């Protein structure tokens, strides 16, 4: 009796696990907002996630099924002795080669996305497509995101100019805190810095995460293809207020318009209403 109970007990949990995973999307336990990523690369990450999920689900059912089977058989074994076997060379070979093939496939299949996500840009980090994509510099500090945009309309031609802009503040720069505007459907380049300790720039909806290392300036590339506001959080422990580094990334059609609006709010002298955003004066912070 108790043997049957324990066999059922160990069979029940894997089934429960699969059921929970199966109903997870319906219960809103899946990816944020239960939606696919808002970047093309993020969608490929999702696909890879589901690919691995499929493979491990098969492996999970296989192993747990085998475990349940041998438990069941072993619990009903009425022989005087167990099966005297020291193993099987053939089986060892099979269950070495098959998993290694699957694992190698998983590993190699991932490389492409990682190469696009980070490696190619890193290898070409002194090359020239970057000036046209630069959107902002984000500096993480305890416990907020400080954002600096180039002056509205400013165009960079060479990487040298970009480096120069990154090195120090420039006249006309637009400053903001905790709210980052990025262009919609356009490749975006953010330079990530840390003002103090280590942080991590994490936008779950975009599947973007990058640590901000003190003393380094790290570039992040992504293309947002869905308009809207996305939560920006810190993913690396940065002190007692780690949890409250709440920010927002908003993808907009016309980035320059937003920058002009921010600029006029920034320049507001308290007398002349700014051109772009007359209605926002009350909430404007100089």
């Amino acid at each position, binding site marked *: 009796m108790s043997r049957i109970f324990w066999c059922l007990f160990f069979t029940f949990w894997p089934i429960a696990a699969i059921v929970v995973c199966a109903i997870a999307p319906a219960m809103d336990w899946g990816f944020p907002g239960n939606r696919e990523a808002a970047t093309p690369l993020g969608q490929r990450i999702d696909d890879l996630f589901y690919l*691995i999920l499929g493979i491990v689900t098969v492996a999970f059912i296989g192993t747990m099924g085998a*475990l349940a089977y041998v438990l069941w058989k072993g619990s009903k074994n009425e*022989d005087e002795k167990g099966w005297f076997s020291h193993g099987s060379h053939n089986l060892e070979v099979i269950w070495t080669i098959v998993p290694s093939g699957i694992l190698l496939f998983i590993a190699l299949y991932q490389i492409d996305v990682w190469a696009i996500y980070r490696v190619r840009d890193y290898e070409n980090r002194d090359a020239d497509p970057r000036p046209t994509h630069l959107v902002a510099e984000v500096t993480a500090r305890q416990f907020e995101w400080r954002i600096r945009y180039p002056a509205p309309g400013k165009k960079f031609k060479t990487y040298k100019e970009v480096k120069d802009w990154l090195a120090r503040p420039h006249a006309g720069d637009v400053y903001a805190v905790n709210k980052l505007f990025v262009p919609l459907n356009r490749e975006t380049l953010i330079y990530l810095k840390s003002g103090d300790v280590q942080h991590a720039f994490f936008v779950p909806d975009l599947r973007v995460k990058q640590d901000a290392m003190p003393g380094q300036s790290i570039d992040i590339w992504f293309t947002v293809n869905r308009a809207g506001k996305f939560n920006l959080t810190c993913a690396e422990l940065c002190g007692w207020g780690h949890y409250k580094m709440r920010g927002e990334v908003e993808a907009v059609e016309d980035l320059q318009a937003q920058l002009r609006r921010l600029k006029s709010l920034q320049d507001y002298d308290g007398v002349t209403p700014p051109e772009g955003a007359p209605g926002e004066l009350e909430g404007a912070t100089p």
Partner: protein
Amino acid sequence: MNTTDTLNPSSGPAHDLHHHNPSFIKKYIFSTDHKMIGVQFLITTLIMMLLGGALALGIRWQLAWPWENMPIFGIKFAGEGGQISPEFYTMLFTMHATVMIFLVVIPILAGAFGNFLIPLMIGADDMAFPTLNMLSYWFMWPAIFFFGLSFYFGGAASGWTSYPLLSALPEAAPGSGHAQNMWLIAVTFVGVSSMMGSVNYMTTIINMRAPGMTLFRMPLTIWSMFITAILQAFALPVLTAAGFMMLFDRAALGGAFEGIHTSFFIPSGIVVNNADPTVGGGQALLWQHLFWFYSHPAVYIMLLPAMGMVSDMLATMCRKPIFGYKPMAYSLAAIAGLGFIVWGHHMFTSGMNPALGMTFMVSTIMIALPSAIKTFNWIGTIWGGKIRFNTVTLHCIAFVSQFVVGGLSGIFMAAVPVDIYIHDTYFIVAHFHYVLFGSTLFGIFGAIQFWFPKMFGRMMNERLGKIHFFLTFVGFNGTFFPMHLLGVAGMPRRYADPYIHPYLEHLMPMNQFITICALIMGLAQLILIYNWVSSIFWGPKCGPNPWNANGVEWSAPSPPPHGNFEVIPTVYRGPYEYSSPLVQGRDFLMQTELLPPPEPDEPDDPDVPAGSAGPAEQDAPNDSPEDPATGTDGEPGEASETAAEES
């Protein structure tokens, strides 16, 4: 039943058994007896487990009911009316991990079971260096003392990983002052203690095996302890060095290093909390490399011994030889070897050269292979067995099934692109708890029950053991399985209040469910403690071999006297000859048992290598099971072949 080898007249007394009656202090406190040291480690780590668990429940309370007054302990917590403050919360998870890793899992495996089992299982009278062994225990106490001091100063709060600059600059956080210094010093002492242990284990296993105990007749427990000791010896110095570099950077130790003030990890021009800008030119990433170069192998230090012990327990409880002994041993070695070249998978998003991410990804994914081989072999061991469903077996089966979950979820984070998303979310928390708790701790619980008779000469209570197992298993899965979902939903680790982020608001009910399960699991451990303590005094007494097991340790009296064996045992075969057709009427055949009719060549020279002129028929893990001498050996070999083909 007592099969202690008495057929070996050449063996002298293993140890001077009756030379003295040691004083209480010599016997129970400053003991050099490996068994007493093992029990000391076990008691210490079990107490620390309760402390670490209490810290975890504090974390869970905050995540389920943020900013609510904490019941019972609330009065002691923080100044503000019993709430958990955010800085207190960062301390809670830092110290939870620290206590569990450095004071529970590592010392309970290597310290408690390594000490207790290694000499007994290889047939030695004690460790090679008994005094060093005693020191390795007593160096735990400065560590515990300094961790205690860290609590006194408010508790280190930069995570158990202690990434700089949070940990390197005292201004960075309330917990980064003296508390961090104390933490670093304590970790150094843990390292010294482990190092003493590992040197001792390696020497003992290499030099002090009983006659006939060839390397491939060693139980897998010993294999795993051996490999773990090697891992520790090679990885630990890196952490110790990194800890001192950090102390120098911090100019810590009460001004003793004031003149040094290095900048290994501190870049220049950083302003933290309006303190003076740092001078330097260091690199914070360096710490991560050094830290994980130790701490990834440490993950295997926290797992391999449990794998070994579960292999032994499973074979015993299923009355079957271990399936694929040599693949099991080789895959332990493969895990350890690969374990040294995967540390970068903790740093995929850290800003290290991304090309490294590819190599670390491939090596990390490939480490799943030896893990998978081990899992298949455990299932193979159960296959066709005659299973005894006792507490030990249940814990071992739990180990295997939870290890499958923990191993498979590891593939997600080994894959760099997917890891970009799930890194530092609760998915990671779920994964490592499945490995470290679901696997290792269930293995430990099983081992506590399995070797308890050898430690104390009494049995633990089965009914209480099963209740403890049931509650722990249910509570464990209820706690940690949903964390996978939290992680996929994007909930980051180490958040005192995730719900201020709109996309996480709806996860609060799930966190409350998790906390209730964690509470059940935590309370269930009291049953284990009660069972353990009461069985020492009132458990039913047992003989030397209550499980009908094969290992050398079961030929010693329970509990073994000082010096372990009355005569040095001689080993005639591997440890897994269960259900052997060589013996009738019972299903075990001890390693030390000499079968009649004896070989013409009496084992006065038992050191002969396996498979040569010695008792070859009794060396079954060797590749040649057929032996013309007995005439029965061919059948099981054939039977296994056909069964394998049928499947």
